[in-house]
């Protein structure tokens, strides 16, 4: 069978809806269209039933109680609610010379964590932005060293969205528990792909997204611990008091039901899917790094997600490379793929040189990625890198034995 092009290898950005998810959602558009807040008639009850069912699925996926799951519009909102809501609830009062409290996060977090923390800093909180090593991993030791008397919140992602590396979540959670500090983890890239148990993993707050796990866009969840300790948050959106007052607003019933179905499927299939994708990723990485000299996998080689790889191909610029492989949808750390001229701050944060950051590709596999697609990607990426290297003045210099770092470049 001919391969259908283009091929999608950007599952860390978003995933297609699973047809089973769409099927579960459909009745909620037309027949079961009620407002779950309508307590006095059948239409409202039906919608509420759908939400209750979905909440149960998400809770099971996380090893949590249904009452601990808050539906939101997505992981960005979950992160904002968790970070701002916890900071405002647990701030040191009265605000003295030491400020309102100390928050620990990391420089390679997603912007949806970094920017809320930066806003809190403007509003009188203090923050430490941890710098991971070259492997991209934040350890409990690093967190412990940054802890202070006035630390109120630690927010660290479970797995990184650009390089897939996995932080020491369980250990960091244990440390926070011991110190009485609230621990939030952005589980957007992790939950639904890898096992979660909020009890064993010592998590107080966990953000997740539906569209990263084959559910619809525009819906997400925040896990909020109810016991040992009971975590309280200052709501960031006020109104009708839905979601036990944590998040007002009429429920996105179709989206929530879709997310529930996606969570149900994820829990059943994640083990087999993870094992299958790991094999495909390893095949791809082995083939590419073997065929192309001066290429490197970014981040820790073992402690990372099974379906994601981030590879730098020296002397070739990422956007130029993506143009040569236009049949493969993926992303790059190159500056040219963004409006700014700065390459990926995540790769820079690892100490990957700017040049190699410009030369990186992120390939993320998913539920319907086939071996045939992987073979196609290997062949085409190799061809494209070799073609662009034949055009690259840097590759010539490298072959002539010139040390590129010793040249005085004219920066612009």
């Amino acid at each position, binding site marked *: 069978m001919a391969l259908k092009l283009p091929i999608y290898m950007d599952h860390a950005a978003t995933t297609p809806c699973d047809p089973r998810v769409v099927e579960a959602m459909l009745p909620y558009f037309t027949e079961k269209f009620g407002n779950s807040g309508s307590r006095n008639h059948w239409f409202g009850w039906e919608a509420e039933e759908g939400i209750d069912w979905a909440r149960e699925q998400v809770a099971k996926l996380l090893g949590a109680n249904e009452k601990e799951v808050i539906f939101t519009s997505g992981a960005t909102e979950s992160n904002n609610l968790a970070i701002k809501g916890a900071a405002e609830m647990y701030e040191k009062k009265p605000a003295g010379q030491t400020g309102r409290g100390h928050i620990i996060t990391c420089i390679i977090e997603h912007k949806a964590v970094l920017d809320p923390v930066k806003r809190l800093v403007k509003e009188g909180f203090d923050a430490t932005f941890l710098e991971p090593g070259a492997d991209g991993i934040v350890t409990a030791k690093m967190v412990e060293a940054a802890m202070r008397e006035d630390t109120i919140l630690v927010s660290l992602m479970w797995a990184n969205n650009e390089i897939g590396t996995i932080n020491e979540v369980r250990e960091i959670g244990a440390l926070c528990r011991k110190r009485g500090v609230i621990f939030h983890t952005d589980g957007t890239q992790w939950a639904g792909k890898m096992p979660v148990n909020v009890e064993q993993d010592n998590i107080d707050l966990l953000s997740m997204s539906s569209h990263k796990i084959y559910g619809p866009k525009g819906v997400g969840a925040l896990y909020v611990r109810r016991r040992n300790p009971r975590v309280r948050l200052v709501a960031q959106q006020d109104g009708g008091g839905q979601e036990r007052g944590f998040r007002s607003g009429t429920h996105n019933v179709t989206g929530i039901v879709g997310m529930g179905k996606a969570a149900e499927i994820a829990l059943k299939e994640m083990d087999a899917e993870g094992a299958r994708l790991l094999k495909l990723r390893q095949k791809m990485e082995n083939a590419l790094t073997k065929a192309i000299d001066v290429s490197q996998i970014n981040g820790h080689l073992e402690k990372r997600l099974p379906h994601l790889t981030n590879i730098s191909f020296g002397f070739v*610029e990422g956007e*130029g490379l993506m143009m040569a492989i236009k049949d493969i949808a993926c992303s790059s750390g190159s500056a*040219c793929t963004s409006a700014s001229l700065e390459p990926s701050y995540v790769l820079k944060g690892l100490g990957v040189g700017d040049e190699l950051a410009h030369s990186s590709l992120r390939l993320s596999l998913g539920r319907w990625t086939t071996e045939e697609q992987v073979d196609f990607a290997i062949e085409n990426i190799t061809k494209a890198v070799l073609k662009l290297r034949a055009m690259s*003045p840097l590759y010539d210099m490298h072959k002539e034995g010139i040390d590129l770092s010793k040249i005085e470049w004219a920066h*612009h």
Partner: protein
Amino acid sequence: MAYSPKVIDHYENPRNVGNFGTTADVKKRPDVGVGIVGAPECGDVMQLQILVDQETGKIKDAKFKTFGCGSAIASSSLATEWLKGRTIDEGLAIKNTQIVEELSLPPVKIHCSVLAEDAIRAAISDYKAKNPGAAGAAASTPASSASR
């Protein structure tokens, strides 16, 4: 972002890729002018080489190699096409705005055309530095341009 058909054409069929010898070789050749502009950290490096008829000051051939995005590759490919057959002074008349127009570059890619213009100027000034008495070589010395 969608690329213009001309950018795609230059990217897929780049004109005049190559050089007139290794870095060490071209340094010694008085008939070759070399311009290398940009920086790897910025995501673009252009290398432009011109082969000049030392009698007439005419650019007989031009070659490029570029590390960069599609627009950077297209801008340098176009520059080599435009340089061939011009005198070195006519080469200096090529402006980045003409490259922008020809390739329909969007605003975020204007720096690619600026880099191409810089590469042209760098290659020509390298040639002039190697040939202080050559045809047209005096035209852009600071003193003469100031007197205009």
